Structure formats: structure tokens, C-alpha cells
């Protein structure tokens, strides 16, 4: 399987060693706590926690930069649009467009929250193999139908992507001009998508037969869960306490940096 998700899943760090179920619960709680933050005074502690987590995970900076390439466009959109449309207090004008103070504050708040949540997500899914994370989700109560679908989806995604690339190359070599929007081109592209669906459907029948032969669907002895170590539980307790503190501070509107 070719993928970038498990690229750094075998490193050795406290986050890599953290029991997957505890890690999932703890970091998801942190993600939600971050989404609660609206007070500018709480952005700095949130940023500090995120940097600390990423440092602890020992994931390389290049991994972070590569992963932020695509969502960076979203951030750019926010930075470009919000200061001009949100708020009433005009700070200055650029080419006749007023830059507003409230809009700038919105940008700072959204961009920081966005970067922190994405970084914690990277730590969550980058420090364990995806199969381990899905097993943890299953043991935490996510329905088996969903986790089975996730595993199979992930297993066959790149195969389907390769198939699309091959067919598109063949179409180009046969002179298909994809730059024009015409009835004929739309029909050809619909046939291309249809072919992908039909091929996947036929492959799924073979996959199901192979899975049945390997015992899929029969009741098996329940795999005993690895017990949670004390250190994992303490780490989970710590992260939950931090998350709860952030939510409480935000709810009470306490400006901690004024003390």
C-alpha cells in the first residue's frame, strides 16, 4: 500500500508510545476544546500546547509544512476576505477598500484555531498506523460497519486512483481534448466515472468472496484488549484536564493574562 499517513508512525516518541485509545480520546477532546476558544487571551496558551505536543511527537517540520499546503489556500482566503468585510472600525484603506479592526481580529482567531486543530489532528493520525487508530476507534464504540468500510476504503483507494490515472492517460493519448465543455466531452467523462464504478463493483465481489474464504463474517474468539497502563491513563487525565480548563476559562470569560 502506498500512502503518506503511516510515514512517521514508527518513530519513537511519547506520543507514539501512548496507548491508541487514550490518545484518540485525549486528542479529540483537545480538538473540541480548541474549537471552543474565541477569547484572544486564550489563543496563546492554545498555541503553546500545540507546539509542545508537536515537539513531543518528534514529527518532522517538513511533514507539517507538506500537510498544510492544501488547507493553506483556505487560510489565504480567510486572510484576504475577512478584514474587508467584517466589522465597522476602519483602520486604513487599500486601493479604496477599507481594512477593519474586527475583521483582523477574526482572522487572527480563525487562523490560530485552524492551525492548532490541524496540527493536533496531524499528531493524532501521524503517530500511529492508521489501522491501529481504526482498531482503537472500533474498541471505543464506533460501529464495526463503519470501521470495516474505512479499512477497505483505505486499502483500495490508491488502486482506484491509479486506475483513473491510467484511463486519463489513455484518453489523452487518443486525442481527448479535456479543455472544452461540450455534450460529447461530458458524456465521455461520465463514461470514465461509470467505468471506475463498474470496475470497483466487480472487484468488490471478488474481494467479498476472498474475505469469506478467510473467515469474514463468522463469529471468532474476541481479541482481548491490551490493558491501559497507568502512565497512559495519567497522560489521558492530564490532557482531559487541560481541555476542560480551556473550556471553563472560555465559558467564564476569565482573562488569565491580566493577572
Amino acid at each position, binding site marked *: 500500500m502506498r500512502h503518506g499517513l503511516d510515514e512517521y508512525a514508527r518513530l519513537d516518541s511519547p506520543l507514539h508510545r501512548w496507548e491508541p485509545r487514550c490518545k484518540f480520546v485525549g486528542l479529540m477532546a483537545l480538538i473540541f476544546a480548541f474549537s471552543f476558544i474565541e477569547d484572544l487571551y486564550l489563543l496563546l496558551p492554545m498555541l503553546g500546547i500545540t507546539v509542545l505536543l508537536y515537539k513531543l511527537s518528534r514529527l518532522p517540520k517538513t511533514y507539517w509544512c507538506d500537510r498544510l499546503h492544501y488547507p493553506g489556500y483556505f487560510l489565504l482566503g480567510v486572510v484576504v476576505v475577512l478584514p474587508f468585510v467584517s466589522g465597522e472600525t476602519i483602520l486604513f484603506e487599500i486601493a479604496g477598500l477599507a481594512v477593519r479592526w474586527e475583521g483582523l481580529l477574526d482572522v487572527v482567531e480563525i487562523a490560530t484555531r485552524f492551525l492548532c486543530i490541524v496540527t493536533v489532528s496531524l499528531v493524532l493520525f501521524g503517530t500511529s498506523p492508521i489501522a491501529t487508530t481504526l482498531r482503537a476507534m472500533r474498541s471505543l464504540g464506533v460501529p464495526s460497519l463503519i470501521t470495516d468500510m474505512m479499512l477497505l476504503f483505505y486499502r483500495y483507494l490508491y488502486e482506484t486512483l491509479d486506475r483513473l490515472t491510467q484511463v486519463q492517460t489513455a484518453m489523452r493519448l487518443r486525442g481527448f481534448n479535456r479543455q472544452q465543455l461540450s455534450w460529447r466531452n461530458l458524456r465521455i467523462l461520465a463514461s470514465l*466515472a461509470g467505468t471506475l464504478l463498474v470496475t470497483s463493483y466487480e472487484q468488490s465481489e471478488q474481494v467479498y468472496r476472498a474475505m469469506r474464504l478467510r473467515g469474514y463474517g463468522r463469529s471468532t474468539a474476541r481479541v482481548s484488549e491490551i490493558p491501559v497502563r497507568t502512565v497512559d491513563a495519567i497522560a489521558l487525565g492530564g490532557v482531559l484536564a487541560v481541555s476542560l480548563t480551556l473550556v471553563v476559562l472560555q465559558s467564564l470569560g476569565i482573562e488569565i493574562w491580566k493577572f
Partner: protein
Amino acid sequence: MHIADGFLPAKVCLAGYAVTGAATWFSLRQIRRDRDPQANIPKASLLTAAFFVGSLIHIPIPPASVHLVLNGLLGAVLGYYAFPAILVGLFFQAVMFQHGGMSVLGVNAAMMGIPAFLSAYVFQFRHRFGSDHRTTLSVFGFLAGALGVGLSALIFFAIVIANVPSNLNAEAERSAVWILTLSQIPLVIIEGVFTSMLVLFLQQVKPSLLQSTVNSEQ
């Protein structure tokens, strides 16, 4: 058409997860009534992968190009599996490409999945008008595709404008939602036409693909 992490307040994110939880529970309950639900898991998974890849096909709209959402088609083909399929697809988009995000997974899944449900039911109505007839298929394929993306666009803009930025007045927000949604009409039509063509292709090549769970007798 994804809402990114950090964009929405926590209460909206939590409400999104609640709606998605309820829709997933409903889907799973319907799926379990199927004769052999396990047999359909590989089918639904691989078709989800194919839909995911199919949505990467760019449709030229000079001078740019767009990619389709295909949630209406997904509803028409997968029936009750459509919602879990969308949830799985969005989860991996968030995890692999940071497209969407974990805090807004519930909102995005509800935004794409509930219109897919409705598309599945709209596509089911074709049985009342002669399901195998080409004209019926193409009309209901168009309606399913257009409804899926159109409704998702409306929900998307309503959520975005209502939550960010917070300093617009209500009148401006309403106008913005309608203007942005109306600007999607060409895309809605293209998605509808594309879905209609694809449904006709499937009827010709693999008709069994159009017998989704929502359409089959349970």
C-alpha cells in the same frame, strides 16, 4: 465544498456531530434489516473509493475547471449506505489531505449526507414512472444529482455566512446566502446532467448497480 477546522464555533461542531450520529444510527438500522448486510460492506467500500476518485475528475468550465461532488449519485447508487460512505470519505479527506477537518467532520457529513439521502428517495420515485425507461432514468438521475449538490451548497453557504464573520447584519447575511447559492446554479445543472449520463451508462453496462438498498425490497 467543505468547511475547514477552526471556522465554526464549538456548539455548531457539536450539533453537526449530533445530527451525523442520528443519521448514521438511522442508516445502520436500515442496513441491518438487509438480508446480508455484510455482503454489501466490500461493495459499499470500494464504490465509496470509486466515488471519491470520480469526484477528482475535472469538468472544464473555461477558463477554469471544477470537480463534481457526486453526493446525489452516491445516494442514488448506494441508498442507505450513502451516509456511512460519505462519512468515511470525509474522514479520510480530513486525515489524508486536511480537507475539512476532525472538529467539523459532523457538520460536513450532515451537509453532504442528508442531501444524498434525499437524492436516494427522489431516485426511488422513478419506479412509479417505469424505472427502466431511458427518459425516466435520465430525468430522475438529473434530479438526484442536482438536488444533492444544490441542497449541500445551500446548507454550506447558510452555515458559513451565519457563523463567519460575526459582524455582518442579518439582511446582508440573507442576501449573501442567496447570491452565493444562485451562483452555483450552473454547477448544479452540470452535476445533474453528469449524473443523468452516468446513470444511463450504468443502466446499459451494469444495471445491478442501480438496485441500491433503499430501492430493494427489505
